[in-house]
């Protein structure tokens, strides 16, 4: 998909206006804390993965995505998934009255004492695969031009651009398919692009820099046109 979350290079958004680090709170309102914690706690029930969660925020109407604050987008994503996955019904949302219990779905709430261990353990996305990597460090690669349906981790500003593989990270869960609930391994590469290859600007102090992007093998093709799987 090409959604409004894909912001790299978009112009006209104005200044960043950062708050000073020394006095910036982690959260700016109580409801932000609660939606943050709800998203994580419900996520730990295992009914969807992180890429499905990202996708749920990204597939809002583009104007809504851009107008919302960060945690408003989390709210939208959580509500979307709770409904789609059947954890909460429309009627429950409207009435705030529970009609069925988590136990009827075979689910139970995570306990507070388990949180520290779960957070410290994390969730590795490294996988084993029999597939040999199709590219090597030093190879030139071209990012696929076509825009696939659904979630993708190709930022549009590198589509059709040529970069050099700097690092093979191993095989990781392929995010684009993980967003469809399919946990599959693909080789992941750290790729360096020159800013002039990306933006096609004249050389200059402000226009020459490197951009590193991590992309999976299905995102890439050999330079010269032979398509990789």
């Amino acid at each position, binding site marked *: 998909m090409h959604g409004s979350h894909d912001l790299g290079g978009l112009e006209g958004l104005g200044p960043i206006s950062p708050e000073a680090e020394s006095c910036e709170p982690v959260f700016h309102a109580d409801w932000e804390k609660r939606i943050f914690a709800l998203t994580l*706690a*419900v996520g730990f029930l295992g009914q969807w993965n992180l890429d499905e969660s990202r996708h749920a925020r990204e597939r809002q109407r583009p104007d809504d995505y851009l107008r919302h604050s960060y945690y408003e987008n989390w709210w939208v994503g959580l509500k979307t998934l709770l409904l789609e996955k059947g954890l909460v019904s429309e009627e429950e949302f409207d009435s705030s009255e529970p009609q069925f219990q988590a136990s009827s779905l075979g689910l139970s709430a995570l306990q507070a004492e388990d949180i520290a261990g779960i957070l410290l353990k*994390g969730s590795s996305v490294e996988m084993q695969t029999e597939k040999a990597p199709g590219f090597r460090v030093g190879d030139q690669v071209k990012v696929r031009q076509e825009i696939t349906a659904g979630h993708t981790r190709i930022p549009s500003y590198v589509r059709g651009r040529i970069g050099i593989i700097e690092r093979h990270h191993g095989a990781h869960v392929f995010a684009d398919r993980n967003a469809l609930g399919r946990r599959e391994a693909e080789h992941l590469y750290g790729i360096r692009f020159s800013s002039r290859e990306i933006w096609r600007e004249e050389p200059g102090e402000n226009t020459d820099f490197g951009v590193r992007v991590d992309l999976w093998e299905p995102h890439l093709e050999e330079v010269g046109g032979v398509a990789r799987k």
Partner: protein
Amino acid sequence: MSDDHHSHDHTEPPDSLTLKVKALESLLVEKGLVSEQTLDALIETYEHKVGPRNGAQVVAKAWTDPEFKAWLLKDATGAIASLGFTGRQGEHMQVVENTDTVHNLVVCTLCSCYPWPVLGLPPVWYKSAPYRARAVRDPRGVLAEFGTQLEPHVHIEVWDSTAEMRYLVLPQRPMGTEGWPEGKLADLVTRNSMIGVEKISLPGDDPSGDREVL
């Protein structure tokens, strides 16, 4: 938004959103999907326990222990885990080193990917549309907004976190800190320097280093 604040990518929520989130929380608790204590523990963790002081320890150790630094640059996940900083959103780490000729800057143009175990949750500006849009297009302009001027010969490398690799910048150790103990060095390390939008200066060296809120 009141006038005594910077404008940033955070709008005061409509009251209805505050109420809606409250209502959803009550509903999910009543349904047995989440517990209040778990929500409180999650907030407590990221508000008070996990934050950029962790990353500052990593940086200070790398400045004082060459073997650790070599390990960190080769296998950041392992080296950082040896200090106890592991887990969610830091499962696969890479550390990129600033030098006299290279300055690194980290962004997530697609969302808000950020190394939680070493930096905590990302600041509002890191998640904002202007930063995500411009970091890969005009990094010098972005740095200028943070009061950071690089020498013309310094090359910028931008790291867009598009997969589950998480990036931490190893900033340059400021001159005049020879012989300082690790703890004192760690106090110098700012969160922003580990994202790459600022350099580290000694207190009093650079008035633009920590600007006040207008």
